[in-house]
């Protein structure tokens, strides 16, 4: 039930017995790299048009206001 079980609940029990000092720096490094690669991947996804349109509309509003204020 303990060591080799990768079921959802049991991992937590294992995690406590490891403690933070138990994590190899190489492992930490590998996880860090994977996290950054994962996030980078998400960031590279093309933005949907509606968000770009929204920003354009907001900018247009701002320009209108600036113009009416005589700036």
């Amino acid at each position, binding site marked *: 039930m303990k060591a080799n079980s990768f079921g959802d609940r049991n991992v937590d029990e294992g995690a406590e017995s490891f403690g933070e000092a138990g994590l190899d720096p190489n492992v930490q490094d590998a996880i860090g790299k994977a996290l950054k690669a*994962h996030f980078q991947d998400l960031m590279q996804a093309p933005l949907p048009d509606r968000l770009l349109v929204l920003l354009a509309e907001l900018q247009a509003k701002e320009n209108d206001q600036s113009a009416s204020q005589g700036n």
Partner: protein
Amino acid sequence: MAETKAREGGAPQPSFRDLLVREMPSLRAFALSLSGSTHKADDLVQDTLLKAWGNSDKFEPGTNIRAWLFTILRNTYFTLYRRQGREVQDVDGVYSEKLSVDGGQEGALDLADFRAALARLPEDQREVLILVGASGLSYEEAADICGVAIGTIKSRMNRARTRLAQLLGIAGASDLAGDRQTGAVLKQGGAIAPKNP
């Protein structure tokens, strides 16, 4: 409303809108991570942009706008979206072709395996990994965003990393003998996905 500082003379500074545009990819990535749904993520980013625009006077120039925007997005998520439950993940289409990253002594880490493991973490642990480990915010900024103490962020971070390492079968030198084997089985059998009955 948004002031355009550049108009006041001096060196041209990016307008508030420029800052928002620059942060859109990271905002959307954070929204995808939180909600697990592309549709919800886009709604979340849209709400966040509107709120940020309407409250631009509350942003303190010189502070990290990413942290400020992430706070708005996270609050929006927890007040409006989370009650609808975490949908079945539909973000797979967002990912680029299968990639792996250099796992140092552990060999290549398969990103699909990594994502499967990440998806199995408790929400608070996954969040802190994304905030600190992935998007590069400081512990202090993450603590502000989540409304908890820095110590809480640090301990979540440690638990999250340890658990990820276990799920990936790379738990560390002290357990290499046992875990190497488990890890090999995990990778071959793709044992991260199936859960114990």
